[in-house]
């Protein structure tokens, strides 16, 4: 039984675009930590072997000859829609979409299909998923043990770079991670902060959750409503308090218009739900130590 979007070593993973430069580099990194990659996809290289793995023309072709639980795509924006529809049509249950700048109307088609078929999408514009010591998919330094270490704190982040910094701080502070869920920086994504929070709340290996959000949208506010009902402590950091209003800060999701989605709105909603909101990334470690009994710390 897949626990996606919490990635496990038992998940059988297909890499779309595996034969390209980035696909090759990250497939090697994923396998280094024991991630179970079962096949690659490239319509032009079907039938070949790459990194010792079979290459198929499509995910539909993969599932005709083997089981696959999760697909991850190294595909440029213009090719994302058709590649994602292939995954959904093949009946694969989880899809990680790393690509940034995917046209939103293509994603409307993808979400329309994934909802109909029950496929869970993470992203687009995510850096991926990491379960330290077990597996990772995407473009996170999941193979770097200075950043990630096994433990019992779940981490949710819209940003890959900031998520990396937060996990690094946690590891150095003695808090290993049960799982990292990168949800992606786009405004319209398949797995929201709330979805990820629910997954980590249900995960028996998670004792506390760090929620790394950003200004824009109302995802953090919705997650706050759920956090109120949780038995596990939640600590948050929200990026963008110093951002000038109305300007897009790289992530399309991080634009503030009016009062909705602003830093004060998110912080107030989280604090009202008894979520500790840290002022700086390193402040997360102190806030977590104050909330979490010592047992969640890694053995020395």
């Amino acid at each position, binding site marked *: 039984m897949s626990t996606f979007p919490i990635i496990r070593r038992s998940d059988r993973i297909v890499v779309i675009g595996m034969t390209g430069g980035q696909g090759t580099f990250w497939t090697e990194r994923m396998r280094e930590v024991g991630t179970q990659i079962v096949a690659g996809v490239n319509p032009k290289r079907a039938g070949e072997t790459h990194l010792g793995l079979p290459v198929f023309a499509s995910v539909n072709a993969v599932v005709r000859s083997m089981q696959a639980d999760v697909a991850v795509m190294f595909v440029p*924006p*213009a090719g994302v829609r058709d590649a994602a529809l292939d995954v959904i049509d093949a009946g694969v249950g989880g899809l990680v979409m790393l690509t*940034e*700048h995917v*046209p*939103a*109307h293509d*994603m*409307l*088609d993808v*979400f*329309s*299909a994934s*909802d*109909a078929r029950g496929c869970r999408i993470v992203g687009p514009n995510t*850096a991926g998923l990491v379960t330290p010591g077990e597996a990772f998919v995407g*473009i*996170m*330094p999941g193979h*770097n043990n*200075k*950043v990630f270490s096994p433990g019992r704190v779940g981490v949710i*982040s819209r*940003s*890959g*770079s*900031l*998520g*990396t*910094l937060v996990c*690094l701080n946690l590891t150095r502070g003695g808090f290993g991670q049960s799982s990292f869920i990168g949800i992606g*920086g786009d*405004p*319209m*994504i*398949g797995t*929201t902060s709330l979805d990820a929070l629910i997954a980590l709340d249900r995960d028996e290996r998670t004792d506390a959750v760090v929620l*790394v959000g*950003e*200004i824009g*949208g109302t995802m953090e506010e*919705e997650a706050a409503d759920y956090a109120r009902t949780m038995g596990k402590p939640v600590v948050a*950091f929200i*990026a*963008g*308090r*110093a*951002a*000038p209003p109305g*300007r*897009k*800060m*790289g*992530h*399309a999701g*991080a634009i503030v218009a*009016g009062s909705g989605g602003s830093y004060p709105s998110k912080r107030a909603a989280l604090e009202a739900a008894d979520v500790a909101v840290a002022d*700086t*990334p*390193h402040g997360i470690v102190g806030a977590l130590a104050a909330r979490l009994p010592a047992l969640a710390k890694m053995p020395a």
Partner: protein
Amino acid sequence: MNLLEYDAKRLVLAPANIRLLDGALCHTVAEAAAAAERIGPCVVKAQVPTGKRGKAGGIRLAATPAEARDAAERILGMNIAGHPVASVMIEAQAAIIHEYYAAVLHAPRERCSLVLFSTEGGMDIEEIAESRPEMLRKHWVRTIDQFDEADAMEMLDGLALGTAHAEIARILVAMYRRYRETDAELIEINPLVQLADGNIAALDCKFVLDDGAAYRQSALAAAAAPDPSTSLERRASEVGLKFIELDGPVGILANGAGLTMTTMDVVSVLGGKPANFLEIGGDAYTKAEPALELLLAKPEIRALVVNFCGAFARTDVMARGVVEAWQRLEPDLPVFFSVHGTGSDEAVALVRDAFGIEPFDLMEDAVRAAIEAAQ
């Protein structure tokens, strides 16, 4: 990317047979007077991609060509919410029976599209939703289902639109179709009006193009109004970097939007003022050298924080870019590093060799040092 009202009407609404009033785009006072001569009593409207034009004095009525000339004289060259007014639209005045609101846009939370209609037009949608929520109709659309006239008729059911009912339904369907065809984030007609002759016409139009689809909407992207930007910001966008100039003295170079915003936040939380937003994450991680050049061209910067945390972005590649630009330009500027993640061993060694300093363990400490040095 936003279109000006005139372009949105001409490029987005007109092809869908949505009725427009007679109008002309004018860049000079003389053009405005000539257009008013032809059109008659008119409205002179500032063409800027922002709302609140009326409140800013950017929309004026003119009964005669002389009045139109006078209005254009006042409006051209205004600055409305940071947008200089380079053109006005001269549009015929019309007798209006009723003002409606209509829009099609993305609904990120529901991961689908949303068609909106209200019998209360002419004000902001936020005001409409607040003051007359019972008059606001919403219809969510999955692309697999499409949106046809039966859906639109059902959506409008019970709204007492009289003879306008069928035509408004047709317009909503046409707006949805254009929204799909043009990769729009938003098409908003506010107000959509019923004229004295019974016809339904678009008096205004707001159109936002999805940046991610600009590559396949080249005509619309070419017509898009430029973002308000400084010359350095424009230079940055020419080399594919997102750069926003701010007022403070602490310059920031970081990778990834989240980490860059966070570096700005930490500068602010620790009592400093950031000088900029500039990130070189994603595929741009190879652009540290041009990015640093941009920062060094901003004389207000008195200290620099370089905060790298590599996931996809390799910190060794970014650090090498910084070192190369620094050695070439030899700036007299204190710089403070924090470097972690992918490639950090090599990156730290590069910084040590080139600058003779040790990167800070915590980004917070690098920021604190930069704030002090900038004072």
